[in-house]
């Protein structure tokens, strides 16, 4: 990025990202998407004007002590609610196309 511009997203890159994100992309969409994503990446590139040396990244909007839970079983035990919305289920299991390892 910065002085040297970011390597533009090309067809191979977009296929790779789509694969990582598990998104089917109709081939006719990719040209438009490549254009849009490159515009957005071009836009965010202005961040390189900012000197962020020695700046701690901010990962959240609050800085609080994390709240912790006691080790008590007070949830679960409602299998019907868990599988109620399942597109395919079998005998209280979620069912998916067979996975071959």
């Amino acid at each position, binding site marked *: 990025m910065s002085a040297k511009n970011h390597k533009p997203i090309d067809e191979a890159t977009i296929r790779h990202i789509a694969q990582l994100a598990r998104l089917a992309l109709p081939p006719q969409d990719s040209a438009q998407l490549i254009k849009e994503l490159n515009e957005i990446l071009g836009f965010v590139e202005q961040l390189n004007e900012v000197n962020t040396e020695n700046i701690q990244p901010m990962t959240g909007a609050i800085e609080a002590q994390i709240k912790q839970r006691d080790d008590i079983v007070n949830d679960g035990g409602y*299998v019907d609610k868990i599988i109620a919305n399942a597109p395919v289920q079998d*005998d209280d299991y*979620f*069912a998916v196309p067979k996975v071959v390892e």
Partner: protein
Amino acid sequence: MTENKNLITGATGDWEIVLGLEVHAQVRSAAKLFSGAATDYGGEPNTQVSFVDAAMPGMLPVINRKCVEQAIRTGLGLRAKINLFSVFDRKNYFYPDLPQGYQISQYQQPIVGEGALLIELEDGTEKSIGIERLHLEQDAGKSMHDQHPELSFVDLNRSGVALMEIVSKPDMRSVSEAQAYVKKLRAILRYLGTCDGNMEQGSLRADVNVSVRKPDADYGTRCEIKNVNSIRFIGQAIDYEARRQIAVLEDGGKVIQETRLFDPQKGETRAMRTKEEAHDYRYFPDPDLVPLTFTQAWVDEIAATLPELPDAKKARFIEAYGLTAYDANVLVAEAEIADFFEEVVTNGKTFRDAKAAANMVIGSVFAGLNRLGKPLAESPISATQIGQLLDLVSANIISGRIAKDVFDLMFEEGKYQGKDPMQIVEEKGLQQVTDMSVIEKAVDEVLAANPEKAAQAKEKPKLAGWFVGQVMQATAGKANPQAVNQLIREKLGLD
């Protein structure tokens, strides 16, 4: 660098195996890492699942304090650095038993940093294996691929159960070192009460990183063998994988860095068919969880509750009871065994014969339990009773030999099972004969019955033992063996 005696000889010379282990240990806790669902093993499918564990829309993780405490406790047991600030990250990948589409784990800032673990080698020497880190993460659910021709079934009961991933440095050089490492780690976890170490139920699983190299060369390319779930399989998997890699290299090929699966039926490893595209997990800090922070005071509080761990216990057993390193090692492998032994050896404020106590526990008790297929907790005889049995021997009421018979009576099914040893001795009239006139009579009878042997024995003193045996037999083992021995030697004129 110490010389490695565990080299594998190949066609082109010797090879050294380099091993590192990533052990996933299920945290002992009632509820899951980020939800209030139960962690019990073997529940009906999807019954121990909360909306959080099923990654329903809008659900948020809330961390279980106990799991944090268990991780700290384990870190302390591994003499490791405890990080007062650590971060939960998301590890993103798709798999049907990973409901969120990411695993909450710790990446760059784990809760526990570097530590060390001591293993005992076969030659009795010790070796320190470096611990790289320990981090907390969620377990995935369970997929079953063999229940239906076209479908895999998913059960989320395990989804979200807390795991400690304990990563070693690549410090191991042989199958036996790797196995000793897992055994020792398991012992420590069980001592600490942070993991039940049950490998059959999957509460302890190992990923083994295997590479080979010519001695003193740089590290070779490694393969990761996933989810090896017994000590024996760890051995088989490493053996197979090391030989496979050596064959590839000696054929002029290259080892490809990949994830492999161990097939216990065939005793082989094979590359996983599901491609994990270049392992691009896109880790980033989980925005649903602020960083995990706690005070040194809390760590100190936990440290104060740590039990005596195997290394310290072993040293004490050697020091206090005069046990051999071997016996001590066997006895400290499990905290319950060590406790049992200490109960056997302790008699009020004094100690019984430690060697005899160790033999009784390691020999008789272990062998007996093995025969019955029972754990120590279900032993038919208590440690107190074994102590009483030892006391009968040292008080010369019974001989060591009779003690073994009494032990068997107490142990095995039957009317004497579980009874106190003195009662059995009395009921069966097993008291040692100490009356010298009775013993002398028996000795005389045996000598008289075997005049030729007696003559020979005068020339060959070793034959005296045979007469001792005959007398013991004649007295049904009840004669005091020392007295018999002395009398025979006297009568044969050997002293």
